[in-house]
């Protein structure tokens, strides 16, 4: 259980680092909008 928590914790830190670098929010990441080049408020034309 504790190993699972450690893996989960590192995943949280990893996702946090990625989305903070990309300038998006957890909401964008969860909703999949982070895969658009400019995230939630941008769209490709």
């Amino acid at each position, binding site marked *: *259980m*504790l190993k699972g*928590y*450690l893996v*989960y*914790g*590192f995943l*949280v*830190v990893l*996702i*946090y*680092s990625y*989305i*903070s*670098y*990309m*300038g*998006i*929010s*957890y909401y*964008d990441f969860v909703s999949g909008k*982070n895969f658009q*080049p*400019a*995230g*939630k*408020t*941008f*769209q*490709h*034309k």
Partner: protein
Amino acid sequence: MVKALVCPSCGGSVTIKYADKSLSCVCPSCLSVLSNENESLKIIIKAQKKMAMPLIPLGGRYHFQGHDWEVIGYLIRSDHLEQYQWSEYLLFNPFVGYRFLVCMDGHWSYVIKTKSAPKISDNAKTATYLNRKYELFHKGKVKTLYVLGEFYWRVKENDLVTAEDYIHPPEMLSVEKDNDEEIWSLGQYVDRIEIETAFKLAGRMPWDVGVAPHQPSPHKEKNTIVLYVTCLSLLLICIQFVFLVLILKRDVLNVRYDLSTTKGTVIKTDTFTVTDRGGYIHSDLNANVSNDWFEIAAEIVNQETGEEYEYDQGIEFYSGSDYEGYWSEGSRDSDRRVAKLPAGTYYMNITTNSGQSAPMSFSLKLSEGNTSWGNFLIAIFLLLLYPIYYVIRSSTFEMSRWSQSDYSPYWREDA
């Protein structure tokens, strides 16, 4: 030394296996409790009412806790109101001595008499034994309801003693007092599987009910979890520090326009450079709007690739006065957070719109390398989810343990 005698109550044969040590025994025929005195037996309690048979048969030999034991005695005991009952087995090994095996609500304890009395605190709420502090859990009267086998002490009729239990899971320190003596013993909680294996009770073991006073908590990983949370949080803080301090925030565009009309005006900005630094782009819009709304539809165009990104941003501000005085609603400023753009040179096409077509000036400022505290706080919250769940589970277990005690630290009655 085995001794065969005649029961003075029923005339049946009574065999005492350890006659040189046993002071009391029970006639297997009439269940009278007898006193072993010299070469004869005297009746202490005549013909006990038959109660439950012992789960572990008397006379059986078992290997348990590193020694071979013979089960020579069995007692059913209870509190003085007979609300709670438990059974005790007397184990004997000629080279080791006597031990007790206590079973209450399916929870088992291996009990040994202590060599000395613990030190009791002034308020009588704790007992210290072998440098370990035990907390008072229970105080009350205990009586023996039923006995079988033979015992190294003289069983008394209407045997009622005062008992106190102090716990330090998985141990319980108990004392039984009467007018003549004070006997301290130390009980160790034993897993039911160990009992089942050692005493060959497969399929006959009673289920354990609730939480025993000295049952070890299954939530023993508190220190490891605290360590993990601390390390992960520190890692998170370090990364946030890197974003805040090392990825410097930089203004990429700062423009101001005076418009004769705000409806459908298209503006092309000068070019500006976006670097590859991390963090979001912050768009800050300000307009001297009054009792109106104002909106821009912006296209950010990459000069080299022609790739376009768009977003919109609006503000509204209304004010006036009524019988309560001046009022206002909205703001002349608005912030918008947009994701990082690929590095390159960009320009913006801005189309304005508003409710009324009035002359207006507005300013727009874009900066890159901004760090979100929201993500940091959400990450901290996500890290704390499991520890919070763990603490709740652990506390629930401890509260369940202490729910049977009058001395619960979770339930203090203030005078």
